[in-house]
C-alpha cells in the first residue's frame, strides 16, 4: 500500500487516523497536508460502524446540550 492509498483509505473512512499514521510514517499534520495534496479532507462523522448507534446518540445529545446552552 502506498502513502497515497493509505491517505485515501483514511479519507473514505476505511481506516483510522492511527492506522494511517502507522502505515505512512507521517505525523497527523503531515496526514492533513497529504489529504490536501490529493484534494481530500478529514473523514465525515461515521455512524455506520459497530458503535454507530451509540455515536449518533452521543452526537444528538451533545448537539441538544449546545443548543440549550446558547
Amino acid at each position, binding site marked *: 500500500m502506498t502513502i497515497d492509498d493509505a491517505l485515501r483509505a483514511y479519507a473514505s*473512512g476505511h481506516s*483510522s*487516523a*492511527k492506522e494511517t499514521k502507522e502505515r505512512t510514517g507521517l*505525523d*497527523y*499534520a*503531515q496526514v*492533513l*497536508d*497529504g*489529504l*490536501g*495534496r*490529493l*484534494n*481530500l*479532507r*478529514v*473523514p*465525515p*462523522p*461515521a*455512524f455506520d*460502524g*459497530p*458503535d454507530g448507534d*451509540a*455515536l449518533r446518540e*452521543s*452526537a444528538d*445529545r*451533545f*448537539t*441538544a*446540550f*449546545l*443548543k*440549550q*446552552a*446558547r
Partner: protein
Amino acid sequence: MADYGLIVFDASPLITLAKAGELDVLLRQPLPIIIPDAVYREAANPSYDDGVRIMEWIETNQARVRTANTRAGLQQDILLKNGVRATDLGEAAAIEVTDRFLADNPDNRVALIYEDAGVRKRERDPRVDIFSTASFLHAMEGGGYIQSADQILEQASQAGRNVAEQKAMHTPEPGAGLLAQFRNARTGSTGLLDTTPNSLHKPPDEPSPTQGQTRGRSR
C-alpha cells in the same frame, strides 16, 4: 438534559483546527477545555507553525483552556528524556483526566474529542461521549455556534492543497523549454511576446504570491 462539565482534547483535533486557523471556534461553546500534558507536548510542538499557534492559543485563553498533569504525561516525560519518542500517550492522558473529573463530578458528562471516535469501541464510562473532529464540529454547527463544519475541515487540508498547486505551477509543460527558446530567439529575450504568468519565471525557492497560504513550516 445532559449536563456536560468538560471537553477533553486529544492532539489530532487541535492540530486540525490550528491548521484550519479556527482554534477560536472552541471558545464559542460554553464548556471549559482541558488539554492533558501529554497531548500538549504532541500538539504544541514549537518546531512547527501550527504547534506554535496551539501553544500561543492556550496561553492566550487560560481562563477557558487549561492543561492538566497526568501519570501518562509523566511517563512520556521520562521516555523523552531518555531519547524515546513516546506516541499515543496523549490518549491515555485524556482518559486519565476524564476519569478524574468524573470521580469528582459523578453527575456530569464529558465530551472527549479524538480523531478516531468512529472506529473506537465504547468500553468506557457511559458518561463519556466520544467525538471525532468532524462529529464535534457538526454538533457545533447543529447547536448554531459555527456556520459550516465542512468549511473548517476543508481549510484544515488547504495547506497541502496549496503546496500541490505550487508544485504543479512550477512543473514545466512538455515542450515548454523549446517554446521558450523559440520565443527568446524571436524577441531577443525582451519577453515582449511572453504571456506566461509571472510565477512561472520565479526560481523554485522564491515564494510566490499564494505561498503564504501554506502556513510556513509544516510538520
